[in-house]
């Protein structure tokens, strides 16, 4: 049995990480804050039944479901709103192209976006992603495959403009120095 003080402790420790996950899904910090707050509220009601070792995954799953709910009525995210959330010094080239990953992710359908984020931002295995997204491993594979293909399409024009992706060897796909 777990009590509310433990919930507070969990939120204090994990909130930045959870908010960042929601930002990757929604593309907009305000929306992300709403989504996380709703998810935390739902989790608080059942906190006593949430296993401590799986609390992060449990809350992320709640965030994912809130995100899907919110995505039905969400307005498109403007490039300026994305730019506000980027560390411009780190990725000047990508930002200049205005096709930063955060903007491209917003062009994917919500479930594809969530699958891509789960696999390649959270670094979950296909099996773990399937559990968090409430679908089969096959669905995760399909969603990520289609999501990544779509991102490539969206980036293709960008590649032509900036002459390749900064820091990435186009043959091997590995980052350069």
């Amino acid at each position, binding site marked *: 049995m777990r009590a*509310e003080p433990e919930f*507070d402790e969990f*939120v*204090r420790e994990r*909130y*930045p990480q959870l*908010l*960042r996950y929601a*930002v*990757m899904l929604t593309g907009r*910090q*305000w929306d*992300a*804050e*709403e989504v*996380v*707050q709703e998810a*935390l*509220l739902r989790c*608080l*009601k059942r906190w006593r039944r949430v296993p401590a070792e799986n609390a992060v995954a449990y809350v992320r799953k709640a965030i994912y479901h809130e995100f899907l709910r919110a995505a039905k009525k969400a307005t498109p995210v403007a490039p300026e709103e994305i730019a506000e*959330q*980027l*560390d411009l010094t*780190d*990725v000047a080239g*990508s930002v200049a192209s205005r096709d*930063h*990953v*955060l903007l491209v992710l917003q062009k994917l359908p919500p479930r594809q976006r969530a699958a*891509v*984020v789960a*696999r*390649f*931002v959270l670094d979950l295995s*296909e099996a773990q992603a399937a559990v968090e997204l409430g679908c089969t491993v096959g669905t995760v*594979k*399909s969603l*990520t*495959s289609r999501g*990544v293909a779509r*991102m*490539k399409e969206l*980036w293709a024009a960008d590649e032509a403009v900036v002459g390749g*992706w900064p*820091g*990435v060897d*186009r043959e*091997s*796909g*590995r*980052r350069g120095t």
Partner: protein
Amino acid sequence: MTVDEQDPAVVRLRRESGSVVVAPPRVDTVLRRVHERRREQRQHRIQAFAALSVVLIAVAGALLVNRDWGQDVVTPLAAAPIAEWPLRGSLAGDRDLLARAEETWRQSPHRPSGAVRAVFAGSPPYSGTANFAVVAMVSAEGSVAFVTTPAGRQIDMSTLLLRAVAPVEAGAPAIGFIAARPDPRDEVAGIAFGLAAPTLSAPNLVSSALDYSLGDGNHHVDGAFWAQVAQPVAAWNSRLDLGALGAVDPAAGTADPVSRVGLRRTDQGLVADGASEGDLIATRDGALGVVGPSGVLDTDLSALGEWGTAVVPYNNVVGTLTDDGEFRPDGIVYPDNRVVLVREDVTVTLGTVAPDGAAWRLVRAADPAAAPATGWRVGLP
């Protein structure tokens, strides 16, 4: 198909996702909101259960006592007197906040002379643009005041601002305010708040300067709503609508250029007590006239046209008002287009246009011949 981990798109995705910077709000604020909303949900469940129990008992009683099901019984609704309103809201237990709010009112030029009692203290259930804590207080002499925190993304409980003060009727079904001119510490253009009498649903904010209710999308909880407003919505062109129970005028912001005036009819015409020459007098429905040198309202359209610019907000077509009731637009207008009077940051509804042969007639929204006992005085330099 499994995606190759070394796929350039995956590599780029991983690299650029690392550049996403998130500035989390204070976790304490987040936790406070989550716990507040949890408490409210619990209270609502208890209230819903209690209400259901009352209804079931009442229905059972009615069935036992009165078996004549053929007759409809209509129970008239009535609001509780404001003196009996209990203190409501998610911050009702914050004694420090209540004390500071009262002190803020007492230190202002609009200070009450007698005892003061808070009837609401709370913040919206969801963070958003209309994000401010509010304390509503009534005084023994019959006025209501609204003290709030600045409106913005985060609620700063350390700063309290007196937003509005107005007389209130004892049986008012709702109270509220619209502060159209923001405080420099606000992050939004204007704010509104409304609170219905206990057991009533939150009022809808309706403006005669708009074609739609502003109620949708606002935060509603415990009979209260919070809203962000922007021009042309203001206290002098809006009402807090309670359906069958009627509507009440919201209080205007302390920084807004308006005040309430009494209207009376004399042999010379309509007079607004306390108004000065050049003031525009309006009701929430629309403009009545401009105070002339003798204190009597000049209700002719030309006088209104001299006070401000007549505009069709639908397409921003400006027009000229004539004393024979015409609106002569400098562009294309359509039947039933709304015409408003604009001066500086003040917008007052005038009416709508109706075709009259080759001309456009202005159908006034507020009839000076049927003016109510009180109105708004708009005093601009």
